[in-house]
Every structure is written in structure tokens, then in C-alpha cells.
């Protein structure tokens, strides 16, 4: 158990390529942190720097109050779960789990006990003598988890551990990881590109883009108060609608048409954000005219894809709702998000 403190960490590769720059995250003991972002955002690099598999070129990483920059991975008291599991193919499940303990000179009896405990937790007892190639994808994933658990490390590091599984298994394993982490209370850093996985697992999310932190926060806080257009469009599915808009005398207009919405913002261009589920079909004949292009029925909800003043918009509505021939959209003004038109940073509108 330990807190992890990442301070001003950066990674520069040969030829001055910045993979990660100036990352600071204070991770509390027992916290589940998810690093999320598109591929190439530096999330894996950051994780591998914490693990000690990648040299840290700037800043410091401390685990349990000890700066680990120059410390070998094995001495950092961390365990890692890899995307392709990295199970030793020639060793049985038992040996895979025991290898790290053996290397540390753990007594045989202790190894047996810990492997048995992990196997019980992960329901791997029947497979201990098997080789990894005789296991299913889900079982291999559990062995990879088990290898981390037996070590009782100060921190778990997960590098996209579920992305090699099929969709259904991914959901199951997601739940198991979450439960296990809560039960063991081990500080965890989890890397994924899947925003849904990030939302469901994290105590706090770290959204990364281009090697920099876009936002850190609890999943719902990030969802409801995205710090930038990047976060707004990356977190949440369908992605938040982002529309180019203009403010004049507190009145918002999109394209030529006024929206009837007001905002306490200075005059000028602005990016307007609206979640698909926050948009409603207006029945009073007011609101933004919406041209429907096509409909996606997902069962629990119905997604209407179309345009407002030439900009594409998605609206989520109840599947039971009849669609009138002329569609207009309305939204509660406290559900609107505003971002600067140039940098995409969030602007908090003064309440009216």
C-alpha cells in the first residue's frame, strides 16, 4: 500500500520527440486512477515510467514517499498486468504465478500459500498445472492478474489489460478487476483508450492528449464538467455535440438562427457543447430547427443524427417518443457547456 506521487514528469526520446511532458498527479493510497486518451497520447509511456521500464527524463516519480527514478522495476514494489498478458509460455500457471516470488527468495511454503490464495480468488485452482496455451483468453487474463496479486505489491499497474478480450468478457472482467481492487485496497494505475472502461473503473480519471494532462477528476465530474472540447468529445458516448456559435448581447446564435438561449458571456465566437441526452425535442414550436438525416435504434434509446444550421448534431430520445414531422431542439440552459472558440478551454458562464 502506498501513495504514488508523479511530479513534473516528462519523457523526451532521442531526437527531441516529446512523448510526455510535465505530468503531475498525486495518487492517494488505495486510489484507482485511470489514464485515458487516444493512442499516442503518452498514457502507456507514463505508466511504463512509473513501472521503471522507461527512463524518466524529467521530474520525479515517488512510490510510498521514495523517489524511484533510478530504481529497477523489481525493486519498486509494483506489479504489472500487460495487454498481451506476457505469460511465460513454457511455465505452468503455478510457475507463472510463483516466478516473481521465487526470484525474491520467498520461502516455498509462503509461495504455495500465496499462489493458492490468488488462485482461489481468481478461480484458477483447476488450471494450476496447465500451460498458458491451454487456457482461454479470459483465463490467461486471470493468470496475469494473479501474477500481480501474489506479489502483494504497493501498486498495480494495468496496461490495457482487457483489450485482447471479446466485448462480453471485457465487461465481466471489468467488474472483477474493480471488485478485486476494492477488496485488496491496492493503489492502482490503469491505462486504457476505452472511455467506458475508464468511467466505470476509475476513482479518478486522468485524460491525456498529446502527452499532456487535459483534465483530472472523478468520472462524473469529468463527464459533467469537461475541461476542454477534447475531453468533452472523448468522454461519453455518443460524443458531446460541439457547435460553432456566436454570442451577441448574451444571446446565442448558431449559424444565422438565434437559438433562444442566453448565456452570461462576452460577445464573440464560442464553442457550444450539448450532450445528446440533454437535448430534447421541443413540442412548443420554438427551439433550433433540426434536419434529421438518419435514426439509430439502440433499444434503450434512439439516436437521431442530423444537422442544426449545417452542423451535425446527435440527439438521444426515448424510443417510445413519436417523431413529429418538423423537429426543433431545446435544452435547459444549465446543461450547456461553453468552450473558447480558439483554444477549446472550458468557460464558466456567469449565471443569468
Amino acid at each position, binding site marked *: 500500500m502506498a501513495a504514488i506521487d508523479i511530479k513534473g514528469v516528462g519523457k523526451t526520446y532521442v531526437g527531441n520527440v516529446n512523448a510526455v511532458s510535465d505530468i503531475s498527479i498525486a495518487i492517494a493510497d488505495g486510489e484507482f486512477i485511470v489514464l485515458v486518451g487516444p493512442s499516442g497520447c503518452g498514457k502507456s509511456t507514463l505508466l511504463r515510467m512509473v513501472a521503471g521500464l522507461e527512463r524518466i527524463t524529467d521530474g520525479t516519480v515517488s512510490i510510498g514517499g521514495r523517489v524511484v527514478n533510478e530504481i*529497477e522495476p523489481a525493486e519498486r514494489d509494483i506489479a*504489472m498486468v500487460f495487454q498481451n498478458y506476457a*505469460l511465460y509460455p513454457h511455465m505452468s500457471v503455478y510457475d507463472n504465478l510463483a516466478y516473481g516470488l521465487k526470484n525474491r527468495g520467498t520461502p516455498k511454503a509462503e509461495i504455495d500459500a500465496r499462489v493458492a490464495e490468488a488462485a482461489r480468488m481468481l478461480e484458477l485452482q483447476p488450471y494450476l498445472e496447465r500451460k498458458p496455451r491451454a487456457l482461454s483468453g479470459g483465463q490467461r487474463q486471470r493468470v496475469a492478474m494473479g501474477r500481480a496479486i501474489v506479489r502483494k505489491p504497493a501498486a498495480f499497474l494495468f496496461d490495457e489489460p482487457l483489450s485482447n478480450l471479446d466485448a462480453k468478457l471485457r465487461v465481466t472482467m471489468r467488474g472483477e478487476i474493480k471488485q478485486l481492487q476494492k477488496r485488496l485496497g491496492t493503489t492502482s494505475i490503469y491505462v486504457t483508450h476505452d472511455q467506458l472502461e475508464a468511467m466505470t473503473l476509475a476513482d479518478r480519471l486522468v485524460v491525456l492528449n498529446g502527452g499532456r494532462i487535459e483534465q483530472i477528476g472523478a468520472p462524473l465530474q469529468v463527464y459533467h464538467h469537461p475541461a476542454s472540447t477534447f475531453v468533452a468529445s472523448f468522454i461519453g458516448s455518443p460524443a458531446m455535440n460541439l457547435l460553432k456559435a456566436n454570442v451577441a448581447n448574451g444571446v446565442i446564435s448558431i449559424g444565422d438562427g438565434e437559438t433562444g438561449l442566453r448565456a452570461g458571456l462576452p460577445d464573440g465566437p464560442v464553442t457550444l457543447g450539448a450532450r445528446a441526452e440533454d437535448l430534447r425535442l421541443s413540442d412548443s414550436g420554438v427551439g433550433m430547427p433540426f434536419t434529421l438525416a438518419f435514426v439509430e435504434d439502440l433499444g434503450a434509446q434512439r439516436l437521431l443524427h442530423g444537422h442544426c444550421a449545417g452542423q451535425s448534431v446527435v440527439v438521444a430520445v426515448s424510443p417510445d417518443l413519436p417523431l413529429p414531422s418538423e423537429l426543433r431542439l431545446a435544452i435547459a440552459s444549465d446543461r450547456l457547456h461553453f468552450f473558447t472558440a480558439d483554444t477549446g478551454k472550458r468557460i464558466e458562464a456567469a449565471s443569468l
Partner: protein
Amino acid sequence: MVENRPFLKLLSHLVLILGVVIVAFPVYVAFIASTHKTTDFITGVMPVLPGSDFLATYKTVLFSGLAAAGAPPIGMMLGNSLIMALAISIGKIVISILSAYAIVYFRFPFRQLAFWIIFVTLMLPVEVRIVPTFKVVADLGMLNSYAGLSIPLIASATATFLFRQFFLTVPDELLEAARVDGAGPLKFFKDILLPLSRTNIAALFVILFIYGWNQYLWPLIVTTDSEHYTIVMGIKRMSDVTDAEPQWNLVMAVAILAMLPPVLVVIFMQRLFVKGLVETEK
């Protein structure tokens, strides 16, 4: 096949049977010769049907040696060949796997240079540098020794390349997992990489054993005392009798014995042999 044409099938069988017969014929003739008496070869044509002296011939070559032909007992030459073949194949595998490990899993100054120096050996078959190599071995006092027979032949670029190719296909995560699990470079090599290379090592061993066993020119020039003769070169010394026809039955028996070990290795380890052959040449 796409369509079923009995005629084509039959033709294929005929072609292959003919091929097998042609390929086997020289060995058949040799074997037949080894079952006859020396006197059967003095006049006329060699026999094509088995004779009755199989046991007598092989007993002579294996145990009494061919004192008349100035060669040591065959048993000893077989032993020397075995020692040389094992020393060459094991030596090549050991030094190649170690250097491939260094080249793939470490970064150090002069790595590129070292790689190129090893690469050069690919271009220098022993035959083209025979005189100066002989001189080096002579200066080192390695003539007439097992070391002299084997060490100069154990540098191998092909084996190093094979291991390098294989190591590059081993997932990076395996090394990372091992490092997180507390394995240092030597432990990783011993516990992970070596077990994973087992098939490659075995396949390479088959090829290199044959290579080592079949060496001819090198043993011919570095051994002058008969205690270090190998069987492949020994045959030549035996069939080279001045002013007389060789004792063909004995020479052929020795030829059969000389080819037997590597041929058996190929037949019984065919899968490994094919793998080794196809992959070392890639």
C-alpha cells in the same frame, strides 16, 4: 489437388520411385560391396547382389583396423568424428546464442561493429582462407588436437542470425514482465529465453552436427598423427593406396559407417532437420 487424375498420380509415383532409386543406388552398391571379400574385386565387374561376408568385413574394420592401409581402427575414428561434431555444434550454439543475446537485449558502444565483424564470417568459408588459418592454428600449437579440429570452425554468423531473428520475435512484454518479477539479465536468459529457444536449438543442433561430422579439408590438414583422424577424412587416406587397388569391401564398409550417424540423425529428426535447414538459410 484440384482435380483427380489417376494418370497424373501414377506418374508422380513413378517419378518419385525412380528418384528414390537413383538417390539410393550409390549407397546400395557400396553396401553390397561391403558384404564381399576383397578378392571379389580383383577382376571383372563389381557384384550387384549381397555377398556372405557382411559380418567379417564389419568386424575387421571396426575392431582390427586396417593396418595394411595404414589407418587406425575405425572405432577410434568414429569417436574422433563424434567429438569433433559435438564440439563444433555445441560450441557454435553456445557462442552464437550468447552473442545474439548481447546484440538484441543490450545496447552498448561498438555493438554495430561487433555485429558486422560476426557478419563477415559468413563470407569467409574455411576453404578460401585455408593457408593463413592453418598458420594461425599451427602458431597456437593446436595441430593434432581436438581444440584445433573444432574451435576454428565454431564461429558462425548463420547461427547468430537465427537466434537474433528468433529473439526479435519474442514479445517485449516477456522481458518486461520478467524484470518486474525481479529477473536480472542472466536469470531472464536462463529461465525464460533458453527454454523458449529449445526447438531452435534442437533444429540448429541437427544441422550443425551434420556440418561438423562431414568436415573434410580442415581435419585433413590439421591432423597428421592418426590418433586424431576423423572417419570422413580417414576414408580418403584408406582408398589412397599407392600402386594397388584399394580393398574396396573395407573402404565401402567404412563409407557406410561414416555416413550412418548423420543420416540416422536426419531420418529420425526429420522435422527438426527441415526446420533447421530452412530457417538457417533464410
